[in-house]
Structure formats: C-alpha cells, structure tokens
C-alpha cells in the first residue's frame, strides 16, 4: 500500500513537472539556425546544368551540401572535433565526392544528392600530403592519396585499394604533391629543401616506378605553395628571392635541368615580402591542365599568363585585383577577377581563359559591408546560357566568415554568417520602448519634472495623452488597412526601426560575440540578424567578456554594453563600448589599458548617466574605473572599504582577496593556497548577479522552516587531482567566501575525474563528473542551509555570519554524457528551477531541480510526503518529453544562456554550439498565461448571458412583485 502511495506521489510530481511541446507549438516560439563554419573547400556541382548543389568542407570538420539558390543546407555531416575529424581534402567527380579525413586516416566517398556514404576505407598510417583524382583514357577511375612515405591508389567506385607503394628515400625527401594528366602515369613531387626536386613516375596499373629523376633546385624550400603543373605536363614554379619562374618538362628523359625565366624579362616584379602564388586549372582530371595560369605578385595584383611553345607570355594584367579564380563549364574555361571599384564596392568580371578577353556584360558589383571584413576567397560557378554564352555566379567569403552568393548584375542571392558557428559569449538585452512609451516614461522619469510646477505638468500630461491617442489612431488605421489586404502580403518583418519591447518582454536582443571577432545583434523572436559589427585586428585566441553596463531602463540614455577583448598570451586588453540595440560604437572615451587585465568587476554603483561602474584590475593590482567621472570616483571613495574582489592564479593554486582603498589602490586581505602538486584549479564560478531568490527558506513537513544559506559572495572552486590513476584521482569542491576568504565547505569526490560541469545558484550547487571506478557520469548536488534560525534575517554580510552552514549532499547516476549545464532563471525567482543539460546528442534536457534535492529521503515518511519530496533513487531519469528542443538538435552544444522574461513563468533559453537554438521554457508551466486554445467566446458568451439573465429576471421579479402588491 505504501509503495502504491509512493508511486502515486512520484507520478503526481512528474505530472506536475512534465513539460513537453505540443505538435502545433513547434516553431511557434523557438527557432534553430544551422551553421557550418569557415569554408576551406567549396565545389560547385557542374555535373548537370540545373544542379543547385554546392559542396563545402569547413574548418569545423563539417562536410555539407548547400542549396546554391537559397543558401539552405541540403544535408550536413558533422565529424569529430579536433584533428581526428579534420577534413584534409575534398575532391568531386560526377555524383561522387571523395573526402580524406583525420590526417589521411579515412577515405570516404559520398553520394552528393542525399549525402549518403557510398564507401569508406581506412588508410595506412602516415601523415597526409595530397590527394588527386586519376583518370585513364578520359575516364576518372581512381583516386590517389599521397602520404609522407607512401602512395596508394584506390578505385573510385568501390574504394578498394589497387596498390600501395613506399616512396623512395622518404626519410630525406619531403613528398608534397601529386599530379596525373590522364596518360596512365602518376607523378609524385618531392623536395629536399634548398637542394633538389625529386620526381617519381608511377604506372597506374600496378604501381611500378617508371622513372625517377632529381633536378637541382637550390632555391626551393617548399613545393606546395609555389609550384603547379600546367599544359601537357610542365612543372611550373615561382620563387620570390630570385624573382624567376622555373619550368620543367616532366616526361622528357633528356631535360634534367630546370629552365629559369626571369620575371624581369616579362616586365614583372614580385612585391617584397610577398610569397607569389601560382594558380592553374585542370578542368578534367583525365586530361592535362590548361596552359594558362594566374600569377599573384602582390596582395592586389594578379596577372594571367600563358605558356605557348615553351614561352611564357602575359595575356592580361589585373592591377589592382583582389581575387582571381578559374571556372569551367563544358568546354569553356573562364577566369573571374575581383577588382576594387571604389571604397565600398568591388566589381567582378569574367574573362576568357585562353585569350584573356573580357566577356561583355558580365560585371557583378559586390558591395562590401562597411561593418564587415575584406573578401578573401572567391568561388565561381560558371554555366552555359541558352545562347551559348557563359554565365556565372560567385560565392565570396570574407575575413569575418560571411558567405555571400551573388549573381548578375550584382544581386545578392543569399548571405550566410558563418562566424555564428563559433559563439563565445552572449547576453540578452531588453528592447527599448516605443516612442510613445518612452514619452510617458520621460514625463514621469525625469526628476526635473517635479520642479516644473503644476501648470507645465498638466500641459505635459495632456500633450503625452494626445500623443498616445495619435499613436492609437495610427495603430487602428494600420489594422484596418492591413485587414483589407490579403493575409500573405502583410509583412511582419522585424527591422531595426520597428524594434520595441512587447507586452511581456519576451522579445529581446541577443548580443552574440564570436571567436572571429564579429559581433551580432539578433532578434530573439525570429532569429533575424539586426546588426553586425566586425572588429578587425582580433587575435585568433582572444578571450572575450561581455558586460551590460546600462540596460534599456534608463531612457533617454541609450543602453550600453562593453566588450573586454583580452589577448590570451600577453593578457593585454582593450575595451569596445557599443549600443547593444543598434550595434553602433559608442563615442564614450575608453580608458587605455597599458597593463594586463587580471579581473573585472561590475559594481552596482552607478554614475549620473545610470551606467554601472566597471572596475578593471591590472597585474600590479591597480584599479581602473570605467566610467571614471568625478561623481564615480567620489562614490568609489565613499564605498571603497566595502568593495572586495578576488583573483585566481591557477598555475600556483593561489586564490587571493583584495580590498579597494580610497585612492583606488588595493590591499591584500586574504590568501588561500591549494598546492598544485596535489590538485589544480580548473574552474571557479560565483553566482549570477541578476538572480533573485524569492523564498528565504523551505517549509518542512513539520511546518518548521529550514533557512537557506544565501551568500551572494560565495565562490565555487573546482579542482582536479594531478594524479590521474583511476583509484586515486579525485575532484575537489571548495566553497569559498569571496570577501573573507573563508572556506565554507570543502569536499572531495573520490575516484572521480573531469571534465566537471557545474551550476552555482541560490543556496545550491550541482556538479557533474566522471566516476572513474564505475565508468559513468554522476550528478552531485550540494545545498547549504543556515538551519532552523536565521542569524540576521534583514541583511547578509560575509563579515558577520560566524556560524558555518549546514551542508547537505546527495549524488545520482546520470545515464548520459554531458556537454554543458545551466539553470533556468526567472524574473522574481518564484518559479521552480530546472537544470538545462546539453547532451552531446544535441538534445537539451530540462531536468527539474526537484530531482536534485539532497533531502530526498531513502525511506518515505509522512513528513517527506508532506514536503513533496521524491523518494531517493540512485539513477536520474531521462524522459524524451523533457527534451525542450524535440528534434531540433544543436550540434556540438557548447553553452546555454538563460535570461528572465517579463513573465514570471517564462525563461528564455539560447543554446549555442555549431548551431543556435532559441526557445522559451516554463519550469512551472504557464501559470500566469492563458492557454493558446483558451475559449474566449464561450467565457464571454456565458458572462453576457448571465448578465442579461440577471437583468431580465430582475425585471420579471419586479413585475411579479408589483402584481402581487396589487392583488
């Protein structure tokens, strides 16, 4: 019987927390965007004229097919992270795409229409050098893979290995490239730097070495960047130091001398310090390449050259020109060249490759985004028009990883912002009020208004009422106007001008910072990119910290965000201040930071413009305030003795606390040293500043209250043991007060290993670790309580809280690996909390905090039932309906950002990784919102009906009374 009750209790509690999306709610308040990353290889499917496929392989180890008409993904394959999934080469022939991954570990062939794997071969070990398609008698049949010490040939239709041969003298010769011209031979080029070139010739049928020759080339250091094969088997190299081109006939046995052609004889010169680049084209792998090639002499100078009868002649000089590329359609090969037009635009023109003549009416104007980067890659898709002329489309990749697809005469077909595949940090900012709302706000908000006197106040009031009336009429007119139009043509697009806060503040501005240094402002409701800003000269491994200094609440002051960009190696940082709604750089003068920044601190102190004060602590423990007006400095002096901050030096295991002095210097006040020989600090987290806790305690079964230990200064420090043996490894958890340095709690999770993910909030902390003994993931929850009595219920001070808190802890098995962990956040903290667990499968699990409660009893009692505690079960359940993103998985989920909305029940969630997913969650269901299918008609008709019924019955009763009185 008791068991039944328990089960009932569980099922009731589950019913309470169960939250899943209904089918008709899909996509209503959530959206997902999929990305691929920085494109390394892109190939257009030229197999058929009508093909829309664009195959791309990226630095995020993604291999995908894009629809070249819309920019959408046809399919996408996400490989392993790191060098294991690195895509080395992408080759395409007909319907097949051949990909070499993992530094030459795997050779795969994909069917390009649906993205199915045709075959996969595991290659021999050895670092990958090059791969090429090999054709025999006009048919491409094989693919050759060159490793450091071996070459192998594989059948293109089955992947089976035809032969593999060791390369001669591979310990001294660096073999780098491979070439086949369709004449039954495969050439392998190697180089001994500053000595000679080695050319080995293999027979395709059996891998027999036909010929091996070495040619003196003392000037050569690397083949890959400076050599190419043109015409019918002529190796062409360029060297910057000797300012020469070199040619070598591959198939003639006689020529063992490389021919030198001085660039001077062609009236050319390579810009100093620039490594010249040769670009040739081989339209069909079964046939030799063309005899025309591009030579890039400086970053903005290309020249089209031709080799004819052993002589090199310039066909056309492109000066200035940023990018150049060949493209082939049918029998015709063209060259597209991008040249600067003016400051904001470039023009792309098409030239015929064999003559260098310009095709008429082929100009595409490419407008450069003033907030973007320079173009750095050009991919051309040429096709034959009906009148047999060559048409083309281009895809331009810029430094800020924007892919723009253009067609004649400069129409942008689509744009993809691939920088968003690597979001580092983000914030959600409230949208501003509309003009009318702001007007009202302005009327009551300004302090000056009080001094205005009565009459001006009345006038002001009337004027603002008038404005409201006007706005309302305009709104009505718009409704009326829209109603007459067919529904489809009513546009509801979000633009930066129509941005305004909605009734419940559910729509926010997502400010996203990406690793490439591009900032985005995205509308959270639709996912539309409203502004973007590329910050140039960002080091590739910079650390970003985004701080909201002023929210939208202080009209007429614009909201203000500050981005601290810090160089990982030097620690030197600089600040970028901008308006998060419009993305415009702020005109506020920013303090120079000549010394490395160790720590930042956002104070609740505000200046006269309502911007919160940001303190930056440098490596000499000097403090810089931003903004640093007189007012701020005065306030800082007054409150200096209550401003504390902490620093962490994980290399020495040192945590130290400092206090601010009146002269903005600091003094060391506490020090905790965790010896690095035993354990190292891996992570440290405080609590979120915008978190509200509604209840101070928990009501127990016997109606007494257990008070929470709500220390806002508490830091959770996670350490991992240096000993990684599975029996001796451990994870350490320190809860340290950030003001006094007091270790509030210290626990050791034995036989545990990282990576540790954790959430620190309210009076609890949840962490996930790997149990190395049982080989499973485990959750552990720590809760801190003051006990049955509060020491000081009015205010919390770290300096005056002498009694240590009671710590409760419980652990659970979690039957899945974890990528990231975050907790929901709501406006007032009344709603129950959920944990959002990002799984490597791409799902986001919304796990009720109720399941992670250290007070879950082992044996059910009357009191625990009263308290609604779920009996302890060692395994944490995973229910499919708890996945908040149903089938919209987020690849390689790296972080989850939660933000409160204006509705207490609703929390906004953004998950980012390779993809971005935005949704809303309702941890305690939508208790403050009417359901979507709420029957307004019924309830109002019942109300009206009752109203009229009472009216009529009242009348009838009166008549009856009157009649009775007459009787």
């Amino acid at each position: 019987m008791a068991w039944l009750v328990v089960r009932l209790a569980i099922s009731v509690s589950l019913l309470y927390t169960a939250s899943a999306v209904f089918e008709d709610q899909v996509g209503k308040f959530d959206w997902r965007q999929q990305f691929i990353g920085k494109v390394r290889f892109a190939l257009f499917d030229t197999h058929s004229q009508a093909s829309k496929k664009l195959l791309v392989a990226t630095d995020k180890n993604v291999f995908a097919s894009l629809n070249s008409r819309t920019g959408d993904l046809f399919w996408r394959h996400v490989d392993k992270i790191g060098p294991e999934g690195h895509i080395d080469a992408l080759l395409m022939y007909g319907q097949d795409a051949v990909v070499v991954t993992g530094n030459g570990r795997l050779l795969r062939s994909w069917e390009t229409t649906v993205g199915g794997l045709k075959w996969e071969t595991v290659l021999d070990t050895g670092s990958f050098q090059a791969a090429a398609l090999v054709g025999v008698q006009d048919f491409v049949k094989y693919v050759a893979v060159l490793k450091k010490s071996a070459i192998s040939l594989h059948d293109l239709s089955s992947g089976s290995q035809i032969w593999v041969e060791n390369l001669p003298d591979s310990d001294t010769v660096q073999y780098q490239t491979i070439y086949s011209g369709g004449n039954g031979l495969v050439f392998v080029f190697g180089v001994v730097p500053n000595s000679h070139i080695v050319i080995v010739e293999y027979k395709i049928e059996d891998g027999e070495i036909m010929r091996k020759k070495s040619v003196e080339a003392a000037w050569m250091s690397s083949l890959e960047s400076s050599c190419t094969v043109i015409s019918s088997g002529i190796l062409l190299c360029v060297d910057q130091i000797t300012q020469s081109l070199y040619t070598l006939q591959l198939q003639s046995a006689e020529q063992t001398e490389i021919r030198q052609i001085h660039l001077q004889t062609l009236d050319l010169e390579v810009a100093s310090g620039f490594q010249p680049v040769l670009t040739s084209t081989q339209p069909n792998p079964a046939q030799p390449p063309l005899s025309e090639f591009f030579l890039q002499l400086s970053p903005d100078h290309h020249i089209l050259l031709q080799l004819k009868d052993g002589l090199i002649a310039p066909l056309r000089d492109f000066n200035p020109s940023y990018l150049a590329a060949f493209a082939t359609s049918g029998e015709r090969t063209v060259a597209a060249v991008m040249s600067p037009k003016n400051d904001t635009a470039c023009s792309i023109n098409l030239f015929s490759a064999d003559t260098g003549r310009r095709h008429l009416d082929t100009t595409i104007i490419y407008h450069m985004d003033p907030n973007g980067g320079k173009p750095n890659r050009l991919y051309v898709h040429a096709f034959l028009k009906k009148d047999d002329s060559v048409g083309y489309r281009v895809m331009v990749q810029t430094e800020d990883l924007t892919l723009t697809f253009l067609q004649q005469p400069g129409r942008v077909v689509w744009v993809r912002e691939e920088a968003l595949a690597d979001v580092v940090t983000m914030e959600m900012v409230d949208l501003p009020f509309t003009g009318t709302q702001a007007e009202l706000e302005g009327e009551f908000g300004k302090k000056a208004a009080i001094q205005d006197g009565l009459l001006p106040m009345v006038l002001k009031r009337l004027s603002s009422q008038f404005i409201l009336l006007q706005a309302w009429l305009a709104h009505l007119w718009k409704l009326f106007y829209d109603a007459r139009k067919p529904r489809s043509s009513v546009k509801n697009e979000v633009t930066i001008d129509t941005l305004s806060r909605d009734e419940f503040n559910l729509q926010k501005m997502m400010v996203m910072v990406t690793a490439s240094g591009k900032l985005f402002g995205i509308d959270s409701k639709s996912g539309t990119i409203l502004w973007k800003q590329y910050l140039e000269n960002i080091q590739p491994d910079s650390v970003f910290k985004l701080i909201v200094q002023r929210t939208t609440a202080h009209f007429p002051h614009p909201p203000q965000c500050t981005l601290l960009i810090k160089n990982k190696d030097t620690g030197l940082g600089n600040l970028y201040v901008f308006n998060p709604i419009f993305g415009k750089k702020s005109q506020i003068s920013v303090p120079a930071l000549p010394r490395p920044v160790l720590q930042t601190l956002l104070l609740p102190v505000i200046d006269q413009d309502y911007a919160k004060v940001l303190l930056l602590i440098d490596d000499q423990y000097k403090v810089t305030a931003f903004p640093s007006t007189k007012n701020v400095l005065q306030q800082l002096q007054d409150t200096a003795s209550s401003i504390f901050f902490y620093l962490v030096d994980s290399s020495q295991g040192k945590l130290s606390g400092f206090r601010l002095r009146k002269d903005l210097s600091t003094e060391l006040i506490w020090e905790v040293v965790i010896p690095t020989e035993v354990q190292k600090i891996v992570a440290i987290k405080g609590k979120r500043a915008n978190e509200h806790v509604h209840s101070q305690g928990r009501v127990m079964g016997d109606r007494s209250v257990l008070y929470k230990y709500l220390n806002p200064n508490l830091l959770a420090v996670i350490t991992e043991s240096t000993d990684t043996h599975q029996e001796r490894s451990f994870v350490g958890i320190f809860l340290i007060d950030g003001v006094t340095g007091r270790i509030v709690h210290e626990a050791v999770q034995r036989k545990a290993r990282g990576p540790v993910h954790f959430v620190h909030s309210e009076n609890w902390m949840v962490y996930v670790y790997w149990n190395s003994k049982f080989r499973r993931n485990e959750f552990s929850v720590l809760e801190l309580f003051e006990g049955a009595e509060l020491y000081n219920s009015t205010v919390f001070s770290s300096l005056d809280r002498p009694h240590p808190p009671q710590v409760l802890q419980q652990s659970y098995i979690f039957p899945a690996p974890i990528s990231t962990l975050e907790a929901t956040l709501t406006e007032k903290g009344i709603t129950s909390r959920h944990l959002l667990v990002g799984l490597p499968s791409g799902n986001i699990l919304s796990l009720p905090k109720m399941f992670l409660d250290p007070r879950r009893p082992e044996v059910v009692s009357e009191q625990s039932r009263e308290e609604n505690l779920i009996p302890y079960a060692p395994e944490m359940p995973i229910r499919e309906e708890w996945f908040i993103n149903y089938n919209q998985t987020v690849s390689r989920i790296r972080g989850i950002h939660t933000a409160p909305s204006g509705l207490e029940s609703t929390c906004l969630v953004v998950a980012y990784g390779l993809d971005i997913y935005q949704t809303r969650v309702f941890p305690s269901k939508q208790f403050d919102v009417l359901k979507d299918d709420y029957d307004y008609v019924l309830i109002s008709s019942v109300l009206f009906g009752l109203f009229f019924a009472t009216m009529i019955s009242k009348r009838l009763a009166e008549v009856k009374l009157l009649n009775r009185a007459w009787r």
Partner: protein
Amino acid sequence: MATMRVLSLILSVLSSVTLLWTQSGECNNGRRSGEAVDTDFSGFSVPLEHSFEVDDVPRFSLRGVLQFRGGREHGVYLAQNQLSEKDRNTLKDVAAVDGLYRIRVPRVSLQADRQTERQAEGYLTTFVRACSLVESHLSDVITLHTDVSGCVVGVSIVTIPGSCRGIEVEDEVDLEVFNTTISVVAPVTAPVPETAPYIERMEQEMEKKGKNPQEQKSFFAKYWYLILGGAVFLMATSSAQTPPGGAREQS
C-alpha cells in the same frame, strides 16, 4: 614592539581545543572516508601571527603557537600570549577606525611523510574586522582547512558574535585574554550514488508484495465485481434505450 617579545617570557594561555575531522553535522549521508592517514610523528608547532595597525599596513607579530599532534586525528592546541596594554589600546584604536585584524599561518603540511618538505614558502592570511573582535571580547573561532593530503590550504577566523554595533568595551580585562576555539578541518568525502540500499529496499518491497496474496492477484481477479457491475449497468442502459425506438415503430 611585539616582535621583541620572547616566547618563553610570556604567560601562555592554553585556550580551548577540539574538534577534528569536523563533524559535518546534519550532513545526510556524508559517510566519512575510511582512508586512514597513517601518521605517527610526535607533533610540531608553527607560529600564529597577527597584525592590527591603524594605518592598515600589515606588520605581523607573534600571537601564539599552534601545536599539532600527530596521529590519525589531527589534534591542534593553541598556546597564545596575552595582549599587552599597548596592544589593547592599538586594537581599540583600530576598531574605532574600522580597521582590520589579520592573522596568518605559514603553509604547512600535517602529513608525516612530508615532514621534510613540511614548510612550503608563503603564508595563508585572513582577517576579521577589529571592532567585532573587540566587541566579542576576543572570543574567536579559528579554523584551519587542509586538503586531502593534509596540507593546510586556508585559514579562517570569525568572532562570536560577529557584528559591530559600536558597543564600548570598558573593561580592560575583557581584552587581555583570547578565548579561542581552534580546529582543523579536512575535506569531507562527498557521497556517491547509493545503489546498494536502494536495491535492498526494492527487494524488500518485492518480498512484501510476494507475501501479500491480495497484491499478487491479477487485475481481473481483483476488480472482477466492478467490471461485472459495469457490464451489467451498460447492458441495462442500452436495453433501456431500445424501447422508445420500438415504441415508435409500433405507433
């Protein structure tokens, strides 16, 4: 000056001692680890220093000596000096300007096999507001936290009560002797998921179920009367509905 004092000359006050491997109190299932810390050394001592200056520049002087006892349970005693008149006055002055009272201990390891390299360079420092120390009449609680290997990683000091209300401490005697509670706290072993008791409990439930024949009955066996009743009721209602149709036919 405080530094000129000689330890042997002063009256040592042995203050209270206790509490090791601190009870994690109400911690639900914080089972203590059985890992024994096998130590058999005969104790050692380190200085406990304090500093309280009106100009807030720390100048540490000796407050007492921490004596560690070896063995499985780290015992610690604190032998400390009385405050001199001058110190008392300084402390009151510091309290008046809301200065800090700091203490520090050197980084030491309490583990036996580390005796040779017991003392790492550097100190662990912490502080308490001087006024709260004065107002609590020098009653403080000092806690030394060690890591798993027995190395002291942090020190904390609190006074009881911890507040500063601005109460004047008139009696000089109240500020002479420290009333200190000192303890060493080692990390608590965090609990692991408890599968064994859970399985045991489940088995017990199953057993109980097996014993109770009522529970073992099938659904039909248990509720046959309800099903039968329902079926009869359904039949009755359906047969009751047919007459009107029949009646209409007759008419």
